[in-house]
């Protein structure tokens, strides 16, 4: 229950201090701050830091008058020059053109990735190599010579320079 109160206070503390909470929520936070020590500590810590920020941040980056004068001089010169003809590429950097260029880049990457697949090229690293079964051919020799039954049938690897087969079986066996 205490943790719930603490979390509730923590979530609403910034708006509690700036007076932006509705009446029921503001009263509830105030009650928790009174009842619970952790809530009170959170309140004090938040208030102290917020006050310091409110006083110190407006002093951060304060310009000197010369800087503002320089900008004003440049601005007046810009205002007096007639507006240049706007070019199609002059708007690079705007939100819509950024979206367009990001979209274009994404499309180019997608095409670059899909192009090899579309053309039938496969990466040897990605493809799975399937061992090809060797093609066998049955060679029948004439019975004139004395041959053992083992010599009657011999296997000839495709591409090997063996004796010309007399009879070859087709098709090759499937494994």
């Amino acid at each position, binding site marked *: 229950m205490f943790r719930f109160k603490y979390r509730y206070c923590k979530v609403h503390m*910034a708006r509690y201090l700036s007076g932006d909470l509705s009446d029921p929520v503001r009263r509830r936070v105030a009650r928790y701050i009174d009842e619970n020590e952790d809530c009170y500590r959170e309140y004090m810590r938040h208030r102290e*830091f917020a006050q*310091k*920020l409110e006083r110190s*941040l407006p002093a951060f*980056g304060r310009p000197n008058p010369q800087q503002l004068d*320089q*900008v004003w001089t440049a601005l007046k010169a810009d*205002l007096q020059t007639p507006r240049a003809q706007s070019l199609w590429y002059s708007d690079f*950097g705007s939100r819509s053109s950024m979206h367009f260029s990001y979209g274009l880049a994404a499309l180019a990457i997608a095409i670059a990735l899909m192009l090899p697949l579309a053309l039938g090229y496969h990466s040897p690293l990605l493809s799975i190599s399937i061992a090809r079964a060797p093609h066998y051919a049955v060679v029948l020799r004439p019975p004139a010579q004395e041959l053992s039954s083992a010599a009657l049938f011999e296997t000839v690897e495709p591409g090997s320079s063996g004796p010309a087969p007399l009879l070859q079986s087709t098709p090759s066996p499937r494994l």
Partner: protein
Amino acid sequence: MTDNQLAMRQEIDAIVNRAVNGDQNGYAELYDRFAASLYRLCYSLLLNEQDAEDILQESFLYAFKNLQRFDSRKASLKTWLYTIAISRCRNTYRRKRFVTVDITQWLGLELKAPPAEAPEAAAIRRDASESISTALQDLSPRLREAIVLRYGQGMTYREISEVMGCPQKTAESRVRLGHERLRKALQPVGLGLLEEMLRVH
């Protein structure tokens, strides 16, 4: 809106009308009113003097050229100017996303002390400014924007949500998150530094 705020808004609307009708003094008056706060906003977000000056000039140039489009019923001139400046600051973050180190900061050219300032005061000012600068730089751009608008510019959550272009609840949670992270970032340095900076200013 309080009577004071209403009167100020009417006064600014009158200056805008004068400028739109061709009164050159109207532009100068608008610049005098908003230039310093707009520069602080840009500097706090970009943490670079040159970039802040460029964005200040660009924002005013755009605003002055499009002043007839400004509708005071939709937003105040301050909110409109801040929206323009923040949008340009965001473009600068995007362009500089991979270049985060600024050579002028390395060389110590960033923090110029006024000539009359004593060396001790200048050193304290430099330390404090560097600590805040580092802490702000560690925040994400969105959290930095929320913190700078809330604490640096004293805007309400509603105004922050208008300038940042997000729902009010989102603006609130960004301020809360930014506050927590900034407190954690500045804790090792000591919150006394902020006090020192206040004393010097």
